[in-house]
Every structure is written in structure tokens, then in C-alpha cells.
């Protein structure tokens, strides 16, 4: 009996994050990689996908330091966030942790880390973040 493939949803992406895995969906028909995963390929309209685990290293494309934060992030402010380019050209935004703000620069290598804390209420999505490799 084959195990059923988990659905290609954002919910499932975050379930993998809770298992400390960064997973993307690859379209089996045309090879396009999707991060976040999606149930319908926006390249060829196929819904035939497979899960691919990504390496956690990447390059910082751009960043900012948020001083005025939304309520649930107020205690963290000021905090840096950036967009990191992972392998296959896939990009992911997130908070950068444990690096002095002055030492952050475009092009630097970062690595994905995983939070274990889960939130209550919708949505129950653990956060990933970026840190020095």
C-alpha cells in the first residue's frame, strides 16, 4: 500500500516546517518548482506535482529593518527581514535572527532555521527564519 502524497498546500508546507523541512513542489509535467507549493501549475496547468526537499542555504537578495511593527511583532522591533534566494532560484521572505543589523549585507550567505513554537488559533503555522550559516 502506497502512502498518500500530502496535498500541495500552504498548510502542508508549514507542516513540513514543523518537521524542520523546507519543501517545494515540482511540477512533474514541466519541471517548474513552486514555493509556496500550489495544486495547479501556473506554467503548464498540470496538477501532477511531487515534493522536493530544499537545501537550507541561500543568498540574501535584499533586506530591511522594521522599526514600526504590527502588534504581534512589536516586542521584536527593530528586527531585520529579508528575501533569500535558495537553490533553483526559489525565493523566500523571512526574519533574520541573531546577526547584528550593521553586519547584514546584500549578497551574504544565510541559512534557514526552524521555530518550534506553535501559535494557537488559525493559522497554526510554525515560522522558519534566516540565520548565519
Amino acid at each position, binding site marked *: 500500500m502506497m502512502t498518500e502524497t500530502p496535498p500541495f498546500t*500552504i498548510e502542508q508546507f*508549514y507542516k513540513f516546517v514543523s518537521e524542520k523541512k523546507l519543501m517545494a513542489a515540482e511540477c512533474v509535467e514541466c519541471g517548474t518548482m513552486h514555493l*509556496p507549493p500550489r495544486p495547479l501549475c501556473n506554467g503548464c496547468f498540470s496538477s501532477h506535482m511531487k515534493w522536493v526537499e530544499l537545501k537550507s542555504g541561500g543568498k540574501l*537578495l*535584499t*533586506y*530591511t*529593518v*522594521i*522599526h*514600526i*511593527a*504590527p*502588534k504581534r*511583532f512589536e516586542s*521584536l522591533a*527593530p*528586527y531585520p*527581514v*529579508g*528575501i533569500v534566494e535558495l537553490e533553483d532560484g526559489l*525565493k*523566500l*521572505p*523571512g*526574519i533574520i535572527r541573531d546577526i547584528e543589523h550593521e553586519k547584514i549585507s*546584500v549578497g551574504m550567505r544565510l541559512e534557514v532555521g526552524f521555530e518550534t513554537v506553535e501559535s494557537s488559533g488559525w*493559522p497554526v*503555522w510554525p*515560522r522558519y*527564519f534566516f540565520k548565519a550559516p
Partner: protein
Amino acid sequence: MSWRKGGSTSLSSKPLATIISAGLSKFGRREGVYGRELFAEAVKEAYDRCPNLDPRRDIKALFVGHMGESYEHQGHTGPTLADWAGLLPVQATRVENACASSGVALRWATLAISSGAYDAVMVGGVEKMTHRTTPEVTEYLAMAADYPFEQWHGITFPGLYALMATAHMHHYGTTEEQMARVAVKNHHNGALNPKAHMQKEVTLEKAMTSRVIAWPLKLYDCSLITDGASCLILAKPEIAGKFTDTPVHVIGAGQASDAIGLYERESCTTLKAAQLAGRDAYKMAKAKPQDIDIAETHDCFTIAEIIAYEDLGFCSPGDGGRMIEEGTTEIGGSIPVNTSGGLKAKGHPVGATGVGQAYEMYLQLTEQAGRRQVEGATVGLTHNVGGSGATATVHIFRRA
């Protein structure tokens, strides 16, 4: 950088629709006034400008931009505003494309006229925001950004444009000072606009030393939280003369979409949707960037105006910072941008902004812009962006 003027008066494109009247509420902190009442204020001005119009007889549809139900606990804005405009039982449709809501409404109103379905329609927009606290407004505006990957990871709206600014600085050497110059210019213009939210000049030093919101963006790099409403009345070009002696034609109307997440897009230094919307608008208008005499661009943050110059072909990619520095886009420069004060100083009641930009174009192209009038302006462009660029619309207007 040289800006060559084209022969704009000779643009031969066929009008898609014609603005026969326009109105704008006072923008600002409008305490004790409800959104629909602001809309009535804009509508009243449009009716007063156009005594030959019999609104209930002539206006056959209303398209209205409105972004957020949260502000006033009020959705279903279309028929509500139709009622407050005195237009019941007119067919009324609300359009929601974040900060581009009324720009998109304007485009579909234009296409509704050019399709032949209607002789005259009203298009408008409204947002009442200032009665909410800044954290509340921040949260409501953030809804225009991706939730599961951007909002969920603490990225605010200024944060998204800050990510673009950092990338632009890195790739092209754009500076914080160049961004601050956008604020200085737009505050100067806003001081000439009696309907602007902030009618005071700001110095370069003050702009550059204001508190950091999302580095590298500071307070004066950000547009204002504002209450306001806007309205235009559009008619078929062939019958516009029945209503007004000073019609303004809509000759180009482009729109495009992109991924909602900034991180999913090809580039952080350009808004592809704006480039595509501009390309389509220029094509419809049979115009080139050099034909544009005056523009209102979506300066929700100062970096957005710099990127707009590039996306609209006013300068080459990467030259936007230099363009502001050289004064090309000041009143008196060869292509004045945001003569109204822009979102930066006139204010940004999000749902009202797109049509509010067209209102400024109407005033400029009919020589009614008072102290900020650009002499001889014949062809104007408006550029309205939703969210961090998942929606963009560009319109081109010509004095009749």
C-alpha cells in the same frame, strides 16, 4: 539626462471615453465624517461643475473603488455610495484592488463607455481611515500583502517598499537623499494644493532625519493616512460636448497583474505590472513617454516614485534617482510629476487615490490647477499601484 518633448498635441488616438466633470473632497483628517459623506462632498463638486448634467437621467452606472471594510465596518459600498450620490436605482459596482481600487474602477468605467454599453457613468473612490489607530491601519493595509509568507513573517507595507529600496540602492546606487528629495518636491507641491492633507514644505534635512519606519525608509518617505473621496463623470466622446466646453479625453487605459508576494516576482527593483500597464496605455494612446507633459504617479513611498519614472519610460532603469536630483519632475521641469502633492502630501485615502490622480489631471488639462498649474499641459498620465505591485493601472489623458 535629457528629456525631449514630443509633439503631444498631434496625438491622433481615438478617445475611449471623456471626462465631463470631476470632484474631490478635501483630503485630510476628517473627524466625525463618514465615508459616504465624504463621497457626497466629491460628488457635489462634480455636479456643480456640470450644470447641463441631469444625474439621475444621464448617469447609468457607478463604479467605485474602496479597499477596506474594516475601517468603518462597512462593506457593500457600491449601492451605499450610489444612494449618497442621489443615483438610486443606478447599477453600482464596488472594485477592490488594494490601493489601485479606483484606478481599476476608472479603467472598467472607461471600457464600459467605449464598449457602447453606456452614454455616461460615474466612477469614484473613497476611504475613511484616520479614526483608526496607526497599528489598526497598518494591519488593514497589510491585508493587501501576501498573508502566509509576508504578513506572517512580520513584513509590513513600508517593509515591502523598503526591500525594494535596498535592492534599488544596491543595484543602481540610489541614495536615501534622492528618496528624500521626492518628499521635498511633493510637499512643495502639496503646499500649493488647497485640498491636500499636508500643505507645508519640508526641508531635505528634516526628511532625512525623520524617524525610521522600515530602514532605509523614514517617516517622510511614507505617504499619509488620509480620509478622502474622489469622483469623475465619464461620457461617450461624441456626446461630451452636450455637457461641457472643457472635456478631457481618456486615450489610454492599461492594467496588469503580478504575483501578490514581492518575493515571488522576477525583480525587486521594478514593478512589472506597471511596466505592462504603461506599455498597453501608451499603445492605446499611440503615445510615447516623450509625449507626456505631466504625470501623477503612485508615490506611496518615495522609492515608488523613483521606480515609477523608470517603469513608465521617463528615464532608463536605474536613472530614477538622478531624475529627481536634476529637478526634471518639479513644476517648471520638463515633466512635472505629482503636482497635486501626490500620495505623499495630498494624502492617500487608498480607495480614492486612483480617481484622485485623474482629478488632478482633469484640473491641469483644463487649466484649473491654480498656483500649481503647468502651463500648456496637453497630455497627462496617471499611474496607480495596488499593494506592493500585484496590480497596476496606467491611464493617459488628452485635453480635447
